[in-house]
């Protein structure tokens, strides 16, 4: 089962994932038409500002198991898709009670009018892991547009393995055995990040 893995240290806050997500969940699936659609297509991933300038975090549904939102939904509108392991909301069953948002520890559920729901009201909307795209063998839209690998699609075990590899390299550096291929962030990029933190701390004085 594949999932979207987030590398927050790589997020540059460009919000392209948000745009791609909204377009993917539009009726036309075309940026230039989507901006004119009613209801307005909405993203299901949110690039949140970090603690300081020049940091950001792409926040989306983790498709938890067990999923708190699913457990508290009083109409059974939230279910888990068995084959792809995706927590999905059937907006047509939503009564907008907001219980799901209240228990989601990641704050990824919003209330919008949705083109796929023929009700004249807002309903709970969240990431569906681009289930339609996955069925076509594509990666989720947010991952496709992320050019900095802040969002990666893959098997969690594989990703964890490569993350463990990265960690091992870091440890080897810490113990003095410097690995030549350590994927360090470029120094100027780190300087850019650092400015955000420094200026923030100066302002808080």
């Amino acid at each position: 089962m594949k999932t979207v893995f987030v590398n927050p240290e790589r997020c540059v806050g460009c919000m392209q994932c948000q745009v791609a997500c909204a377009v993917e969940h539009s009726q036309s699936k075309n940026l230039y038409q989507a901006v004119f659609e009613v209801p307005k297509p909405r993203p299901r991933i949110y690039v949140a500002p970090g603690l300081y300038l020049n940091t950001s975090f792409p926040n989306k549904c983790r498709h938890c198991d067990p999923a708190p939102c699913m457990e508290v939904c009083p109409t059974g509108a939230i279910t888990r898709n068995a084959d792809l392991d995706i927590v999905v909301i059937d907006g047509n069953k939503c009564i907008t009670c907001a219980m799901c948002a209240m228990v989601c520890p990641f704050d990824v559920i919003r209330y919008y009018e949705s083109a796929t729901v023929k009700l004249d009201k807002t309903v709970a909307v969240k990431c569906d892991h681009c289930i339609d795209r996955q069925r076509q063998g594509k990666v989720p839209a947010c991952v496709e547009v992320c050019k900095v690998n802040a969002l990666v699609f893959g098997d969690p075990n594989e990703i964890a393995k490569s993350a463990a590899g990265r960690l091992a390299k870091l440890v080897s550096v810490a113990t003095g055995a410097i690995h030549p291929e350590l994927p360090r962030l470029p120094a100027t990029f780190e300087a850019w990040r650092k400015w955000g933190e420094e200026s923030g701390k100066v302002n808080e004085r």
Partner: protein
Amino acid sequence: MSDTFEHLSSAKDAQKMIRYAHEEHIETVWDRLAAQEPQCGYCALGLSCRNCAMGPCRVDPFGDGPQRGVCGADADVIVARNLARSIAAGASAHSDHGRDILETLYQTATGETSAYKITDVDKLKRLAAEFGVEAEGKEPAELAREVAWEMMEEFGMRKEELTFAARAPKPRRELWEKLGIMPRGIDRENVEVLHRTHMGVDNDYVNILLHAVRTSLSDGWGGSMVATEVSDVLFGTPAPINSKANLGVLKADHVNIALHGHNPMLSDVMVRAAQDPALQDLARSKGAAGINLVGLCCTGNELQMRIGLPMAGNHLIQELVIMTGALEAMLVDYQCIMPSVVDVAKCFHTEIISTFDKARFTGATHIPFDPKRGIEIGQQIVRRAIENFPNRGPRVVIPDEPVDMMAGFSVEAIVGALGGTPKPLVDAIAAGHIRGAVGVVGCNNPKIKHDYGHTTLTRRLIENDILVVVTGCAAVADGKAGLMTPAAAEMAGPGLKAVCQALGIPPVLHMGSCVDNTRILVLAAALADYLGVDISALPLAGAAPEWYSEKAVSIGTYVVASGIYTVLGVQPAIFGSPNVVNLLAGGLNDVVGAAFAVEPDPEKAAVLIRRHIEGKRKGLGLPFVEPDTIVMPE
């Protein structure tokens, strides 16, 4: 969010007004910055390119994703092109401002307008000499017409070298010549930037940046200098004058009019129109005690420098001043005027009046300025403001008492204060009473606590016997902070304090608006010439702790290209290219003898500057402190 708002501004008047805005749900620049966060990292790093329709493109700063745009441009080329375009935008803004003033000088000389007169004939004569115009036996108007005509060619294509570039010390000019960056026609350099950064023209980042530097020189030693010099001819060369600053300059019982922007042409007329007895009577008939003009941003600086007009505030005050509820009209010309002032004004009775056809604001009243009917238009605007006085709401909030400050330190005034020669200043520097001089300049930026960068850096510098000269928003910040009175010498180190007290001057000298950074160049050149060295040898530095504008990018670049080390408080959009960063923050030293540094903490910036100055002192063989022994705060 902290409810004291101390993290947004260090100025008490601003803190109170930001709180008021928050309580009244009036959106301000700080709200909009928060709403914009996170801001796009590609753009912030300079790695996005929208120059053509094969794009838009962006380069992955981490090296895994795309490393080239569709055209093949890599991070270096994209960053350099973007930076060059920023510099051209800033240089164009200053230069177009200079051109407008120059046109007015020409129209004044030919009699097409009677709103202005040739105020500083001596300066006109000095300019005539520089531009090769024979002054002997000519009336000021005739001389002005010929000088203006010649000066217009600074913008043209017949010159291989700008006339004002001759003001730079010889070694500097030779360096520019050698590097191929001697500025030619102002418009030419700017157009050439646009040409070179078009897809498929200049594809070498160093070559692009060299031309960008040349373009900035066409601003500092060209367009901006035209603006400063011609403004002095028309409106008078500033001399020391007392003034006041902060939102307390608004008067609850007066018709208040704020003059906002950068070009003082109409504002100069406004000052005269407001003195019209008929309009004064009209104001009294509406229940006002009188008419009170106040300045904002650099239009304010221009007027404060020359007539001591009270200064309401700098860039980030422009929305807050409307919220006092005491402003009948805000007259805007151009540059740095937030479109949002129109929206804030909708919550109050304030009328926003735009005056330049090239700078219109949806929702504002547009009264196009025409120098030929200058005084008439000025009176019309003052009348509108008076008639708006009865529309004032019940709640007027003037958050503070004004602070005294001194303005008017043109180069002529500084040299005058020194007794007609730079020698006393050079002697004081040589003896080490004054360690050096620093220009603290530039804007406000909501990313930096308002005024904190300017005032903190200035305080640390004067405490360490470094003379500070200021322009633009920095001048307003330091003025409000009480650093710009002769009494403020008490805050300076012993050496600087003694010099200031002997001369009766503040330790922080107001040199004008942001085009007036050229006064700093002229002063630096005069010191270098006096000592027979290049500017880069002098114990000088520049700082833009809170800059935001493309104009500031141009200023910073021409200052560095003129040989002065410059510390920026905010990052330029170049960090996506290590090559460009390394060039601007280091490599440039070997090219133009100065480079940039970026440091958001003014306490640390002060140390960087002190180390630099001591290093330069060492180089000149003057008494020095070993730079590395100056401790960098944690």
